[in-house]
């Protein structure tokens, strides 16, 4: 079971960060915290969540199993999948400010 937990940890973290950022963005837009959209505060909040999510991958990568066999490689690859997905799917937080 621990191996399975290692395997899904990275993608689960992506799902968590993705949900958090999407939820925070929805709240910020609905609350109209700034007349021009998200505004500086909203954007800072989303970027902070994104960066914190990326930082959370560091311990995951450090505890990922090491070794030559597939049972070692898979959890490692899965962590990188989660990290890559977090970078790619949430990068719009640095590029878009409008609601």
């Amino acid at each position, binding site marked *: *079971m*621990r*191996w*399975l937990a290692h*395997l*899904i940890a990275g*993608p*689960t973290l*992506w*799902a968590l960060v*993705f949900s958090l*950022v*999407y*939820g925070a*963005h*929805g*709240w910020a*837009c*609905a*609350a109209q915290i700034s007349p021009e959209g*998200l505004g500086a505060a909203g954007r800072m909040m*989303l970027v902070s969540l994104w960066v914190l999510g990326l930082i959370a991958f560091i311990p995951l990568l450090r505890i990922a199993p090491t070794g*030559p*066999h*597939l*049972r070692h*490689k*898979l959890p490692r*690859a*899965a962590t990188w*999948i*989660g990290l890559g*997905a977090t970078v*790619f*799917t*949430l*990068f*719009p*937080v640095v*590029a*878009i*400010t*409008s*609601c």
Partner: protein
Amino acid sequence: MTDATTPTVAPERAAPVTLARNPSQRALGLHRELTRVWRNDRGLWGQITAVNHTTLGLRFMGTALIFFAIGGILSMLIRTQLATHEGAFLDTDLYNQIFTMHGSIMMFLFAIPMLEGLGIWLLPKLLGTRDMAFPRLTALGYWCYLFGGLIMLTALLFGVAPHDGWFMYTPLSDATHSPGINADVWLLGVTFVEISAVAAAVEITVTILRQRAPGMRLTEMPLFAWYMLGTSVMMLVGFPPLIAGSVLLELERAFGWPFFDPTRGGDPLLWQHLFWLFGHPEVYIIFLPAAGAMSMIIPVMCRTTILGYGAIVAAILALVFLSFGLWVHHMFTVGIPHMALAFFSAASVLVAVPTAVQVFAWIGTMWKGRPEMHLPMYHILGFFLTFVMGGLTGVMLAIVPFNWQAHDTAFVTAHLHYVLIGGFVFPMMAAATYWLPLISGKRRIKGLGEAAFWVILLGFHGTFFIMHLTGLLGMPRRIDVYPDNPEWVWLNLTSSIFSFVLTIGFAMFVLDLILQVTLGKRERRDPWRAPTLDWAMPIPSPSYNFASIPTPQHLGHTARNAVLSLARGEGALPGAPKGRRELLVTSVGDAQPHHVALLPGNTALPLGLSASIGVFVLLMLAGQYALAGLALVPVAMLIWVWARGMAPAGDLGRVLVAPDLRLPVHHRVHPSLGRTGLSAFLVANGTLFVSLMFGVAFLSVVTPASVPPVAGAQTLSSALGLGLIAIALALAAGVARTPTRGAVALTLGLNLVALLALLWLAFSQMDDPTRHARDALRAVVAGYVGLHILAAAAMAAFVLDQFRRGEIDAQTQGALSALQLWQGFTTAVALISVLVLGAQVVLS
């Protein structure tokens, strides 16, 4: 045909599992002994009471094929109507019913049950076990599927079928815009069928994790099992949002609780979110098993091993997760914020990467092998051509500006048919032609199958390729006439003509299957010279699959080399010397032998239980809500009888598995299959709870301005009531961990206290649920928690009854373990509910 040189398992097996070989026995004697124990009863009664995975898997697939034919006939009616611009073949309401039922049948009554059936039929054979983990659950799933499907079909015959499209978007499907029972048929019928999906997901998950042959590590199991594991987990997480949405919409239609009514604090977009939280993963739920079948078939057809086993497993993992981050791309045109569009557009593009990894791995496998053009290979190539085109139009639709142009046009209809027929139907046809010898024991008659393939390919692309153009020219989906657009006529007429060609092709395919089963010559064992365990048995496959369970020594062999040794009982747990249905349970990661599970025999209980649920559904449809509540009494009683059937009985001594190994039976071990199954069910249940919480959060953000509470959850008495519930349940969770009769009695008492407090809150402190969506959601959450407390109390009463009967002692836990798990879950959801609803009050 030459031999495949190596097994599909990965090479670095550490093989810590060693089992001494059992003495060789007479194969025919073992066969007779096992058949006597595992076979179905004879006659019609035998059909009703069957719980065997081979019977039920085939029954699932056969029934799904019938529904596919019905859905196909409906599509013919649609194409006939659209062949001319002012088609008078169908009136608008009937046309609406037909296209709604076409989509609903193909998704819920064909695709999902077909993949469930394939998994149920194939997985035990592939993993080296004798049945699924919970045979009665398999049967219950089948009957729920059949009855739910029949309810929907009967509605069509009486002209009251759903007519709002298979998305059932609100407000079109609410009581105002869709009076009558049409929408209720969909909501209740589909939810009834979904019992089958959740049941299948639970047992597929448990079977893969706990019933692999000893020594078959997770990283070495056949790829189909990885695909099915991903699928079953997706079903556990994907279906609950739709169940939640369906329950909310039915409550709104039946009792006026306004979850989706913007005039009373609701929002129609909540339905879209809940629907597509299920709907998009659904596409991958359908695709993954088909991809799993291809990953089994391609290496055998190409006389080689799969290329990139590890990369494919990683791709499956990526797909399982990423597919839950795409749902909003179905909602790009509803006016959501730009940044959200960018998130989901990026995720929709990204998901193409793991899909491409698999496609390249399959192409690479063909490249390194020597492809032989047997009939399954034709359908594999049909898949490549069709699915890749569907995938590419999917990437086009992931791009927001294009999506805005093509949304709800025939382009989308074409895309989804390329993905679903390319990604599911072609692989399923490959699977049918590949595994039919194992089902029928017969050899196919050459010629007709190949002709059917070419007719299907021509008919499919003739119908749907041109439909992209129809969509780009602006034709919306789901219209029945287009008198002002003569430019669409020739395109639609062409699609209609080729759709009949497609139907002829499918009819030829089915005829080919029938001819093989009825007139085919006897096939030899393992005709494809495959390396996997599904072929290491006699054909047609016996009811018990393996006379003895494959051991690590057998996993290193090809199927052909392992079959005789297994038939002679040289593997583990040979025969059925005690006349019981026994199977070997192993550990999750390394597949170490753990214990022996004793499975139930043939029984009509699943039929009775599903029929009782069916009565409840029918009474709900008839609007007899009080009677429907009463109908739940026999459901509860039958569940009790079901649980009694799991009570320990007879010889509970250790079972001889191998000369050097005796293992305990499941009543005396922890964790048993039942505990793993309940854990899997709680994953689905937890997702249902999260879906409700999503509703609370969504409406709190979108419609924050609520009417002030009348009775009010802010009052001191409400706070005291909530506190009492929290304390009682927290104590119950702690007390339930003590395995004594007194502790269980106290657990029962604490649950009853919590239940009474909740009822008092509901009836004296909460506002009328019809007043505002927020009140309605609070009532639903209270109902959800209340049902769980009631179930916990019933489980505690059941455990007390087991104590009274002497079925629980120092070695045997009975249902105590299940009670502990359930009580912990109930306490957790109750505490979270109190916190979330409390925070909602404080923040508003």
